[in-house]
């Protein structure tokens, strides 16, 4: 029966049983779910699909092809590593939501129609927000609410776009969409929010650092890479994605340079890495799409590894602020070692995973003559070295020793970090299995002399620039501060606007009701005055006068009747 479940369902349904298990059994069971899920996925033949008709609509809840399969595989791997990393957590809410969230992400990449995609899309939002709220702080609560609003909005845009697209084309199939109609443009915007396009990005840096140490590891893998998959499926070769992606690689790194919270630095860095993938989707050639899929695969592992190392630091010291850290290599040597491997991988040093994936996208950009994008990506590659290659390990584990002495991370965390680190190195050296999984046949050799030497030059001289800037005190110091980003528009400007609009409506209402009360009061006072004893109409009239008034009134009525009737 299990083999007939849609991919992802093993994790979603399996998560519901977790609260009934205890201790080691619960741990083993949770580790087993992604393993079972992966085994089920690998057993499904290529081009497998499940079709059904629902209320007259043709739906395809499962569609397995090479593009969805590679994302499905890495999502299962990420789920396994995240579960292993959070094995010490006894919080039922986090256990259930983490697994269900991973399952929803997996389900989404196998959705063959837009309605199924929408359902999983929203499920990722609803399940993942609990990983943020599980921090149980006021800040996390608020950040979680903002995150949920943005994520649900993205889903609503997807649904609205899907309905319009159906009206126009009569199809709900999730294949190539393009930007040809309002419906597909809305879907593009929905994907763009979740992919953290520039100006739509700030939910990511706002929410991820507020999640629990283990929750952020889950979060880093699924939501954004799901939308990269969705873009690759629906919008491959859409030119506008090239400048969008190039901007995404460049602008977050300026914030990463300034940011003090190292988990937020990683969130900016995540945004920058997504930019490389978006450029790959925009170029849209086989090499570029292979590069995007490969980079997503490698990136999920090294980004999870980096978030794991910072999560371990947070778990042990209670902070990830650069101003409070330093010198931790003494207490946490293994975590330091794994962090250095993650840093080398994201920086794309030869022999590490980032190198074999990113060079595909850069080569594709050059081959298709996107000179501007190529130069921006090269700039961003040097920038990656700053925030993820140097800043994270240097300020976290070396730098100024603040006298923090703690213990090494728990064993399960070390095991998860060790597995992720081994995969980062393994893929960098033995990349053929990864290339064999890519959506298209690969005709690309990452290790030629030009690639290796030019990449080493870029990175080593960026490293030399760090040393130089640090020595001459031009490296921006770590300070206890935040730096404004686009969330200012809704957290400050929007809030002020809403509050002042509310205040204006309130004062306008007060003015209207005030003057209405004044008029009514004045009228009442006048009526009371004229009717009071001794007032103009308060006096009893003599009968003669009354009869005269009655006659006059009657006369007036008669004249009026004469005028208005058609006699």
């Amino acid at each position, binding site marked *: 029966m299990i083999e007939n479940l849609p991919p992802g369902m093993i994790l979603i349904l399996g998560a519901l049983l977790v609260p009934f298990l205890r201790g080691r059994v619960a741990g083993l069971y949770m580790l087993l779910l992604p393993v079972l899920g992966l085994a089920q996925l690998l057993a499904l033949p290529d081009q497998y699909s499940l079709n059904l008709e629902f209320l007259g609509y043709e739906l395809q809840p499962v569609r397995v092809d090479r593009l969805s399969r590679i994302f499905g595989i890495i999502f299962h791997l990420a789920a396994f590593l995240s579960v292993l990393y959070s094995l010490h957590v006894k919080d039922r809410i986090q256990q259930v939501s983490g697994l269900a969230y991973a399952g929803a992400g997996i389900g989404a990449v196998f959705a063959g129609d837009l309605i199924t995609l929408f359902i999983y899309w929203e499920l990722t939002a609803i399940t993942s927000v609990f990983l943020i709220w599980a921090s149980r702080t006021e800040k996390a609560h608020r950040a979680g609410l903002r995150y949920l609003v943005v994520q649900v909005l993205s889903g609503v845009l997807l649904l609205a776009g899907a309905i319009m697209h159906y009206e126009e084309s009569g199809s709900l199939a999730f294949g190539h969409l393009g930007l040809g109609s309002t419906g597909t443009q809305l879907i593009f915007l929905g994907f763009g929010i979740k992919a953290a396009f520039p100006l739509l990005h700030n939910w990511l840096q706002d929410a991820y650092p507020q999640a629990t140490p283990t929750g952020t590891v889950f979060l880093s893998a699924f939501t954004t890479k799901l939308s990269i998959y969705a873009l690759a499926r629906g919008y491959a070769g859409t030119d506008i994605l090239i400048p969008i992606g190039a901007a995404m690689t460049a602008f977050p790194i300026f914030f990463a340079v300034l940011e003090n919270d190292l988990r937020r630095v990683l969130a900016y860095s995540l945004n920058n890495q997504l930019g490389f993938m978006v450029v790959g989707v925009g170029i849209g050639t086989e090499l570029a799409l292979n590069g995007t899929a490969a980079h997503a695969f490698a990136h999920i592992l090294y980004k999870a590894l980096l978030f794991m190392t910072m999560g371990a630091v947070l778990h042990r010291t209670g902070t990830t602020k650069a101003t409070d850290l330093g010198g931790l290599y003494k207490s946490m040597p293994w975590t330091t070692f794994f962090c250095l491997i993650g840093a080398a991988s994201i920086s794309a040093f030869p022999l590490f995973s980032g190198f074999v994936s990113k060079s595909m996208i850069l080569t594709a950009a050059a081959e298709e003559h996107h000179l501007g994008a190529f130069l921006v990506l090269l700039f961003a590659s040097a920038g990656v070295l700053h925030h993820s290659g140097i800043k994270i390990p240097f300020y976290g584990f070396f730098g100024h020793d603040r006298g923090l002495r703690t213990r090494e991370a728990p064993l399960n965390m070390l095991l998860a970090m060790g597995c992720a680190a081994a995969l980062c190195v393994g893929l960098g050296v033995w990349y053929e299995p990864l290339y064999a999984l890519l959506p298209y046949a690969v005709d690309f050799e990452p290790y030629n002399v030009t690639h290796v030497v030019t990449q080493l030059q870029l990175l080593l001289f960026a490293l030399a*620039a760090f040393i130089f800037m640090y020595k001459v005190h*031009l490296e921006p110091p770590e300070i206890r501060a935040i730096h404004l980003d686009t969330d200012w528009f809704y957290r400050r400007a929007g809030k002020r606007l809403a509050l002042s609009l509310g205040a204006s409506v309130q004062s306008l209402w007060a003015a209207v009701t005030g003057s209405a009360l004044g008029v009514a009061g004045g009228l009442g006072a006048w009526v009371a005055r004229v009717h009071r004893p001794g007032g103009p109409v308060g006096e009893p009239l003599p009968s003669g006068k009354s009869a005269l008034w009655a006659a006059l009134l009657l006369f007036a009525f008669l004249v009026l009747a004469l005028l208005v009737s058609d006699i």
Partner: protein
Amino acid sequence: MEPHPPQNPPPPTGDEPGWPERPKNVRRLIALTIVLCVAAVAADLFYSKHGHYGFENITGFHALYGFFSYVGLVLIAGQLRKFLRREEDYYD
């Protein structure tokens, strides 16, 4: 640009400075970086580059690009900080 925060007083544990903290070793690491940098540029002289653009084949192009990208990034970010910096409790 603000000066770097002063080094904190020695850790309360009173342990010896570790290998990466000793000035001699820091100098060694810097020297190693310089040697590697020189070697990476020198390597350009010993093979024919196959860059997609002509400028990529200039000796040491990527070295210069990496160095100045980094410097530019850090300097511009430092200027941005003047406008974007707020207190930690700004949104509270």
